[in-house]
């Protein structure tokens, strides 16, 4: 019971604003797919169209060929967490989940189980109006997990979470994907995606500008080498003579746009002592900025 999501020429215009324009992409089961884009790129609008909350101007978004409103038991098939999902401030978290669970015909024990899963059990009976941002986010995640669905669609799930929460979320999403589920996560926090995603979709100004595996995109970035040496000035000079671009990170550390092998061999030829030589995987940010910048330019 795995599910593939397909966006086909999905388009949404709000008056003159083209929020999403001809977006075509596939999201595969068993993988975490990061949905990246700068503010206003159309991520939320795309996800809301996928979930039947916003009507596409044209195109489709489907789960194994079915639109969201054609799913027979949506809560059991797709778990969702959206930005600005509402809670009645006077209602407790537990009651909020009981309502969703009742409407979806789930077993009565489910709300308490998911509250436990997201670590909200001690606060379950408090009014949501008194919750912190992170607690609301956890409640939203609990709601997404109610139906134990094979698909998760999460819009900026790390918003407001503390470091423990973020780490928990990361490993949780990885384990969900490892179980064969389809996980689509939007974010503009790149390091978060780099640590979580297998595949990446990049949107800018409503258009898909790149899709691929995370590794592919990272490799496209000007990947480099971090090198530490007690002899920073000489190494910098040697690199410059060899025509390599390097940036200093403090007096004894440099980031070089070259492979570790090239940097190591160069240092050996000049007899420069190295204390550290490591590949940096900081490529995604470069790719992201150039991809999304291109569209803006």
């Amino acid at each position, binding site marked *: 019971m795995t599910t593939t999501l397909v966006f086909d020429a999905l388009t949404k215009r709000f008056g003159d604003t083209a929020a999403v324009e001809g977006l075509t992409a596939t999201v595969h089961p068993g993988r975490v797919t990061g949905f990246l884009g700068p503010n206003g790129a159309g991520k939320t609008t795309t996800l809301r169209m996928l979930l039947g*909350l916003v009507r596409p101007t044209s195109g489709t978004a489907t789960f194994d060929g079915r639109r969201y409103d054609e799913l027979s038991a949506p809560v059991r098939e797709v778990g*969702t967490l959206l930005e600005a999902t509402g809670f009645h401030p006077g209602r407790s978290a537990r*009651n909020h989940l009981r*309502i969703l669970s009742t409407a*979806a015909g789930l077993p009565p024990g489910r709300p308490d189980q998911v509250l436990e899963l997201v670590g909200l059990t001690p606060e379950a009976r408090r009014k949501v109006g008194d919750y912190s941002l992170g607690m609301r986010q956890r409640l939203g995640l609990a709601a997404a997990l109610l139906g134990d669905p094979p698909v998760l669609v999460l819009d900026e799930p790390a918003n407001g979470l503390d470091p423990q929460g973020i780490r928990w979320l990361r490993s949780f999403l990885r384990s969900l994907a490892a179980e064969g589920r389809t996980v689509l996560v939007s974010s503009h926090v790149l390091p978060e995606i780099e640590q979580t995603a297998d595949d990446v979709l990049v949107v800018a100004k409503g258009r898909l500008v790149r899709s691929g595996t995370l590794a592919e995109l990272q490799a496209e970035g000007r990947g480099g080498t971090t090198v530490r040496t007690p002899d920073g000035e000489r190494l910098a000079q040697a690199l410059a003579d060899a025509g390599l671009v390097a940036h200093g990170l403090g007096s004894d550390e440099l980031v070089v746009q070259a492979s570790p092998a090239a940097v190591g061999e160069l240092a050996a030829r000049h007899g420069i002592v190295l204390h550290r030589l490591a590949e940096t995987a900081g490529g995604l940010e470069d790719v992201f900025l150039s991809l999304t910048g291109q569209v803006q330019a």
Partner: protein
Amino acid sequence: MTALVRAELLKLRTVKLPLWLLVTALALVLLGVAATVLTAGLEGAPLRRDDPQLMARAVANASGGNVVVLILGIMVLTQEFRFGTATPSFLVTPKRGRVLVAKLIAIALVGAVFAIISAAVAVVAGALLIPFKDGVVNYDEQVLQVLLGAILVMVLYGPIGIAVGALIRNQIAAVVGALAFTFLAEQLLIALLPSWGKWTPGGASSAVLQLGDLATTRGDLLPVWGGALLLVAYAVVLSAIAARLTLRRDLT
């Protein structure tokens, strides 16, 4: 559909608003009964203190909370948009019309509960106050008919509120509009143009009770069944319009 109705009832049971509105409705019932009974026999009052209709008149106030139920219906719907709970509601049930129908049924059930408590309060208050004024407490057929009519009115006003809320979506606009309509526009129309006024929801509820403000111009009222059907028609037609127009809007 039963699951959805149960979820809607759970929504109502897990917030404080319905309780406060019930208290408000009962206060209106008590005020109404007291006003009816205590003014009886005063100069210019429509009823004598020994009027055989006095008890029926008193218990007709059991429908005094109809506007409160209308407001509850409006709030139930508009709060979903105000607090953004419409998003989870429609995620669980993407066929939005089904959510609307579940709300219509749930509010009718809640209206029935409000109505039965209101009826009990009206009967007790009438029975206690009338002897105090040396009036006659007549438990005749008319009392029963009026009580059933009041319950019916209360049951049917909630769905109208849901429909109005779905059409207008903005809570303040819908509540203020509904109050202005029931307390101003409708009253004026009934008073000035009874032949038109009988087609308003207020005119229809007077018809169901066969007692209200139009009792003196009885000939202008619809029959009981006509009033009840008219109230149902208001709820159904307004809901259908809302389902077509406003409910399908994008939730961004």
